């Protein structure tokens, strides 16, 4: 019984020091995903970008150019349709489409379910194409080994400074470089501003359309898979 103020309450105020990340449950599921990937010797790469930056086209070219001794798998995240998955399936690569509906990002639980729809035992490299969005996906760890953000030349060189959270935890892929002559995109500025956020960031410049710069990107993937460096 409360004897302090005479209110008649039989309870007391309990203060609990929690100090826990609010997305700790997602982080835990992401750790489980990572263990699953490691257990199968799979390198997992989370591709993030705005809609239309060229994630699916990059994957199509990567499928063509990657050494055929390595097996790919792809998980597609989109609010609606399985059009991206169809493009990948047409190239003979195992793919699973996550249709997120209104959700603007993938989380670790969605990835977990999707991973079990793929033949994990045969895959060396798993690409996760996140929902096209430079904001929300950045807040959710998936358990992949690497985050890669695509920034297409037509989006403008100010995006790393405007969307710091997503660029901070990722390598950078400047895409559609064949369009550089038609824009005032300043490559040095974009790279400088991105490196402030993440000094260790690896940066690639490529055009999946013309093939320019694809060699470096593919070489980096070969290095990662063959050396188990992920």
């Amino acid at each position, binding site marked *: *019984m409360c004897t302090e103020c005479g209110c008649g*309450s*039989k*309870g*007391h*105020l*309990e*203060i*609990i*020091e*929690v*100090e*826990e*990340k*609010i*997305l*700790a*449950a*997602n982080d835990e599921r992401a750790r489980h995903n990572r263990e699953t990937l490691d257990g199968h010797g799979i390198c997992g790469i989370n591709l993030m970008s705005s809609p239309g930056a060229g994630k699916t086209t990059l994957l199509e070219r990567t499928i063509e150019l990657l050494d055929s001794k390595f097996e790919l798998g792809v998980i597609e995240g989109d609010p609606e349709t399985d059009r991206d998955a169809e493009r990948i399936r047409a190239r003979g690569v195992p793919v699973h489409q996550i249709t997120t509906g209104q*959700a*603007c*990002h993938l*989380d670790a639980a969605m990835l977990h379910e999707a991973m079990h729809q793929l033949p994990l035992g045969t895959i060396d490299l798993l690409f996760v194409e996140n929902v096209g969005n430079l*904001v*929300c996906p*950045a*807040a*959710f760890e998936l358990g992949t080994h690497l985050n890669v953000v695509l920034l297409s030349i037509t989006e403008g060189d100010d995006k790393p*400074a405007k969307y*710091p*959270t*997503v660029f*901070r*935890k990722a390598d950078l892929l400047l895409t559609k470089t064949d369009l550089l002559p038609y824009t005032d995109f300043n490559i040095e500025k974009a790279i*400088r*501003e991105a490196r*402030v*956020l993440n*000094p260790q960031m690896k940066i690639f410049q490529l055009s999946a359309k013309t093939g320019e710069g694809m060699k470096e990107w593919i070489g980096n993937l070969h290095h990662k898979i063959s050396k188990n460096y992920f």
Partner: protein
Amino acid sequence: MHELSVVQSLLETIESYAAEQKATTVTKVIVRNGPLSGIVPHLLRTTFDTFKEKTIAEDAELVIGETPLQIHCHDCKQEAQTMVLRFACPLCGSRNVDARGGDDLILERLEMDVDDDPY
């Protein structure tokens, strides 16, 4: 609007602590947000106030504290803190800096009413 997923996770955590303490109601939820968490405090509050209804935290007040960004300047070699999401040294203005910290949204503390004599 990923704040919805964040609030769902927050409410699950609150429910679990409240059940552990056999709380009758949660009165205050204190969180700490970093400038690089990707969470907008205003949207977090609106979403929390919408989705707390009919939960143990229905009457809870959400208190959002902000944590600073740590700036290490390569030019003046100083460490500084800033609440502004600007990647420049607050002391000398140089943009030759590393920015650290401020990535997380942390549930710091919960205050709840606990019934001492539930029977």
